[in-house]
């Protein structure tokens, strides 16, 4: 499955550099400086509005489910520590404790909201930017060639790697290894057994890719040409200025009023 899909939203037309700067850095920083759930909720609505504006396909929308579940599951860890506030329930299990308090709930809710905001921002970035544009954007930040190449290879192969892992699981299922039943330890052992075939398959695949890269001139010392090298447009300048202004305004308000 490819994350990027072509469409005609303004965000789709923006330069990869602008999108990384706005959605990957500036807007990502803001939730870190938000302490009140209501402020985070407002930002979440803003992100959700932007997300619905890019009109992702149904299959892409489904990605929000595992992300949401992960956020909720991770937030439950706050209930195994004392985060202060009024205690509603407290249980001791020797070394472990479980507590529901106003502090724990606040931390958990803040965590979920931040996770959802960041997920939406990253989805906006990845759904609207082709791998090629993403790499060009990273290059503009001054990242070295090998790093941008690594990113582009990861974007090229991630879906194939997932497919390979799934095939390995299927092959093991056909030998009687059931990943859907058994206790936690049994399942963990069964999943761990996948590592060896996955590792061998990937080593062989990467060998081919390594040969292919060498045979395509990767590693040469000469200056590289960029066949596709889009320039920043007026939309980019406008979007970067707006995002920078919004970030600065929020940081000022946060500093003044602790919102």
């Amino acid at each position, binding site marked *: 499955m490819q994350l990027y899909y072509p469409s005609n939203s303004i965000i789709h037309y923006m330069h990869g550099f602008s999108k990384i700067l706005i959605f990957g850095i500036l807007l990502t920083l803001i939730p870190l400086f938000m302490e009140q759930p209501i402020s985070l909720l407002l930002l979440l609505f803003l992100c959700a509005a932007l997300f619905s504006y890019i009109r992702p396909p149904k299959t892409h929308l489904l990605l929000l489910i595992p992300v949401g579940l992960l956020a909720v599951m991770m937030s439950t860890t706050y209930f195994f520590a004392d985060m202060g506030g009024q205690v509603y329930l407290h249980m001791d299990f020797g070394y472990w404790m479980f507590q529901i308090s106003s502090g724990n709930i606040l931390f958990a809710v803040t965590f979920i909201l931040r996770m959802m905001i960041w997920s939406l921002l990253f989805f906006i970035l990845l759904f609207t930017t082709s791998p090629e544009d993403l790499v060009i954007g990273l290059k503009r930040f001054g990242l070295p060639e090998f790093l941008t190449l690594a990113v582009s290879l990861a974007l090229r192969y991630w879906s194939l790697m997932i497919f390979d892992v799934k095939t390995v699981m299927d092959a093991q299922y056909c030998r009687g290894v059931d990943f859907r039943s058994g206790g936690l330890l049994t399942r963990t052992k069964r999943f761990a057994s996948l590592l060896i075939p996955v590792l061998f398959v990937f080593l062989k695949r990467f060998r081919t890719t390594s040969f292919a890269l060498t045979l*395509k001139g990767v590693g*040469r010392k000469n200056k590289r040409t960029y066949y596709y090298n889009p320039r920043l447009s007026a939309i980019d300048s406008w979007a970067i200025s707006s995002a920078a202004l919004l970030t600065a305004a929020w940081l000022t308000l946060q500093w003044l009023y602790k919102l």
Partner: protein
Amino acid sequence: MIRFDNYSCRYESGKEPLLHTLNLQINPGEFVFVTGPSGGGKSTLCFSINGLIPNEMEGSLYEGSVTVDGINVQQTFPYDLVSVVGTVLQDPEWQLVRGTVKEELTFALENMGVPVEEIDRRLAQVAEQVQIKPLLLRSSLELSGGQKQRVAIAACLMMQPKVIVLDEPTAELDPMGKEMVMETICELHREWGYTVVFVDHNLDVTLPHASRVIVVANGRIIADAPPSRLFDQQAVRKLLPMPQVVHLSRQLGVRSPDGGDPLTVAELEEELARRLGTRAPLAGTNNEQLIRDEPARSGKPIIELKQVRFKYKKHDTDLTIKPVDLRIMQGEFTAIIGHNGAGKSTLCKLITGLLKPSSGEVLIHGKQANSYQAEQRVRHVGFVFQNPDFQFVRRTVYDEVAYGLHIQRLKAEEIDVRVRQVTKLLNIDNYLNEHPHFLSRGERRRVAIASILALEPEVIILDEPTTGLDSLRCQEMMSYIRKLWQKGHTIILLTHDMRVVADYVPRTIVMSGGQIQWDAPTRDIFAKKEELHRHQITLPPVVELSYALGWSVPSLTSEEFIAHMDREEGVIETAAEGVLR
């Protein structure tokens, strides 16, 4: 163009050389077909031409030299050779390193620092040469195997190399993909004069196109001859099974006017027509008397599919499997054929329980398939994947074969007995302490089959068991599979190799567009010549030849064909004698 001077190479850690000292010259504009048994040194020869040996293969040592267009390959790093030698590797997916076709084509030139205007000029030229203009903006993930290899060839041509080296580029493709790649290469050789070094196992397909054949085995060049003279050499006859056309022509004692072997069905047909004189061949002769009886479908149904439908995503409007009804009887040997995406693998995944049908019933022994637990199901249906590497989880062949039995919690003594039985049957009992990943491709496949066979499933489904194997290993593999069938296992074979189907399998199911188009004895299936072509299925040479001679019922094997010809010639001779009297 390419010159090997006293060249040999080996791994630092290895005792035996990968290539023994050899001298070889390949001239400009030649189409050289390199073939031979797996592990014989064909890829080493390729990698010595493009410089991956010794520069990318750590620990590889060499003596002598290889020069391409006057450049010493071993003293030049492969990335500096890209404008002299272009290489296409075997794996169509993982050798494409960029997201879209256009990016893939421009990538190497960007790395070489070629100006944008020049890249544009070459892009237009190559898109025309390889006819991939409509694909330029598409993602590599959306392409078929054949299209991917065409893109890989086009990416080579962007560097304007003088030599194109192709290392088994069609090994993982379906017949259509193979045809697409062969057409492209032949066109480049014929129209544009490229020097081509083509490594492959498929003699039936490649031999007619080559101008010269080099057979490599055990690191040595065993033969270097024109294709029509290749099998004049006894060493080659011992090493390589003949392509079907050559085999037939030799059995019938037919030679081309130049004294060589006919290489195509058309050439053999022409020679046969000449031999039969001006008399028209016995068009419509009935072949049925010569045909061995197909084993009747007997016994109880072991697998039944009733109105099974399937689609991968709930929101999809098109069904991947349209309503399918199918019965597989105990002890049957069935082939499922069809082009890529026809639904063969999906159907088998539904049978093995890897996928659940959207509607309909899959029954094993009359019981709902999903009522079996995974470990119960494997006793009824085993599935051997195309790539054995997906299966191996243990460090030795013994442990690997025993793995599934341990999951079933069998006693150690029983496990030992079963492991030894199946490894002996498949002739891998000498490798019990070897690491399965370090065996040859054919041996790895046999270990994969053994690990499923040890579970004693009644039905064994094999996905492309002969892909990537050389002709000899392919015959070996099929004789092992036939042995399993004769021992009473029900065999379902997914394959693109029509010669295997014609030679070994009595029942054939043709799938297309997620539907079973035909389900009949193999002979009846191959009797649908035109219909099969419409479904992109190529016929084995012997079947093509039967039709070319105007027979109403095709021969499926060389032996059948020869028996028919003997009878036909006998009839002609008798008729001629009658006229004389």
